[in-house]
């Protein structure tokens, strides 16, 4: 009487297909390779630099005396050089970059924003040796003119040589601007329009909208760009080596010749003897440590600055 309804055949769920597993293993293998490479990196540097660490002890980090003739290797001048140049460059580059990013994303008409943005990004693609050449042929003569003028007006007895800390800071600033600017522009563009409108609707002027609605919202991202720029400024070698003057002492004036951790490695490694070489490798290790520290701090700060609910 009741019509029989045919039961559909039971279907079972398929197991993970074999190709999926193969792909999974390949990915795991490749990514662990990256991890292994990083660990090896640190290991090789610490082993290679060990003789220098053993000989100088804590003085390697805090001693001022770098005298290859006497076999004394204390790296503070270069650590200081790296910090001075990197933070000096950021001091100049951050305001310029954020201002340029705001101009591109908030003020410039579309026909202008595109080309200006591309031009700034292009700066990031120029090889650092080209920056170095530009530094030698354009920047240093210009800096020298400024320094001569400065010394003649103020009477401050700083050596107006052109090469030195000031040139290194300037060239680094130009080199990190594209990074900071491009990232700032992207995060500013990504600020939701309702944030701008919220500020406008309260009677904010354009500048107040930027200050209240845009910059606070974008601050974590902008800081990310700044950290990336800092990473580049700490690590940049060639262009800095070409303009910094390469003196093994802490710069006593903003015009003095000095050296950074990376520039001392680059300028000395070629003819390094058996005692100098471990000292340079040890500096390399310290550079690695600083980069890791900068990155860890950056992560913490960025997480704390990211507005709740937008993470």
């Amino acid at each position: 009487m009741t019509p029989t309804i045919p039961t559909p055949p039971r279907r079972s769920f398929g197991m993970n297909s074999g190709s999926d597993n193969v792909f999974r293993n390949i990915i795991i293998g490749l990514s662990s390779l990256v991890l292994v490479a990083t660990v090896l990196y640190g290991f090789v540097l610490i082993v290679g630099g060990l003789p220098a660490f053993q000989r100088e002890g804590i003085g390697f980090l805090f001693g001022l005396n770098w005298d290859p003739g006497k076999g004394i290797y204390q790296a503070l001048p270069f650590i200081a050089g790296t910090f001075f140049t990197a933070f000096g460059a950021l001091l100049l580059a951050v305001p310029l970059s954020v201002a340029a990013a705001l101009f591109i994303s908030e003020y410039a008409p579309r026909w202008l924003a595109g080309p200006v943005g591309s031009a700034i990004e292009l700066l990031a693609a120029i090889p650092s040796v080209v920056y170095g050449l530009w530094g030698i042929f354009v920047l240093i003569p210009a800096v020298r003119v400024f320094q001569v003028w400065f010394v003649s007006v103020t009477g401050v007895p700083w050596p107006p040589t052109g090469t030195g800390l000031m040139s290194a800071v300037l060239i680094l600033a130009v080199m990190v601007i594209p990074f900071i600017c491009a990232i700032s522009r992207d995060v500013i563009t990504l600020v939701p329009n309702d944030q701008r409108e919220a500020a406008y609707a309260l009677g904010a002027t354009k500048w107040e909208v930027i200050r209240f609605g845009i910059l606070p919202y974008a601050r974590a991202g902008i800081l990310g760009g700044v950290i990336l720029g800092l990473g580049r400024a700490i690590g940049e070698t060639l262009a800095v080596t070409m303009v910094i003057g390469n003196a093994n002492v802490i710069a006593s004036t903003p015009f003095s010749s000095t050296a950074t951790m990376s520039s001392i490695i680059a300028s000395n490694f070629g003819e390094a003897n058996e005692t100098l070489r471990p000292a340079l490798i040890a500096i390399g290790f310290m550079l690695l440590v600083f980069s890791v520290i900068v990155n860890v701090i950056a992560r913490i700060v960025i997480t704390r600055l990211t507005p709740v609910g937008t993470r």
Partner: protein
Amino acid sequence: MENQMKLTPPPQSVISTAAVRLESQSVSIFYGEKEAVKNVDVSFKSNTVNALIGPSGCGKTTFLRAINRMHDLTPGARVTGKIMLDGNDLYGDGIDPVDVRRRIGMVFQKPNPFPTMSIYDNVAAGLKLAGERNKQKLDEVVERSLRGGALWDEVKDRLKAPGSSLSGGQQQRLCIARALAVDPEILLMDEPTSALDPQSTSRIEDLMETLKQQVTIVIVTHNMQQASRVSDTTSFFYVGDLVEHGVTSEMFTNPKDKRTEDYITGRFG
């Protein structure tokens, strides 16, 4: 009389005694060449809630945003005609849009508190923009505005918490409090409850009833029950035209225009 009804609301004791606060005269709004709002004449009286309804793309939000000159920020957008607040043309010569927006507050579709600011700072933002630095005055206004937004009791113990830590409904009431803090004369609301759950929606609807004691409200809504619950007058927009404007209770029971009737009975839209 019957054919004039279209633009002049029929007399009704509460509304007719109030003075006209906001009035648009031949307002058209263009995006480039496209005319999104066509020649709208409408007036809203003091201490009323006025709903703008109509299907998506009919121009109601476009019209709302013309009232506080938000279109000034959209490249290619153009407003013609006059919008009068207490008899002054908001688009007149020498009128600063920043000033207009201080007097005409706005609440948006999606709650948009400033996520890096505390609850307190969100509410105080407008006052600080206006240059108020007196801590005591700020405290006072923040409390009054949060009470006005029916949020005070829920947040009074955590004014320093970030504004974005609140629930969606609380965030929207925070945005209402933020708009109230600068003591606006008109409050524009652009589908303020469309992102909220029914309970939060009903709290905000109740709130509007209280708010109209101090401000004149213009609200865009997709929800016709909402329009009928909260508003004193309703304006029905269709493809850029203001089809019908009138007292809400009359318009929902006895629409004059066929299109209004079709829309409110759910035949389209």
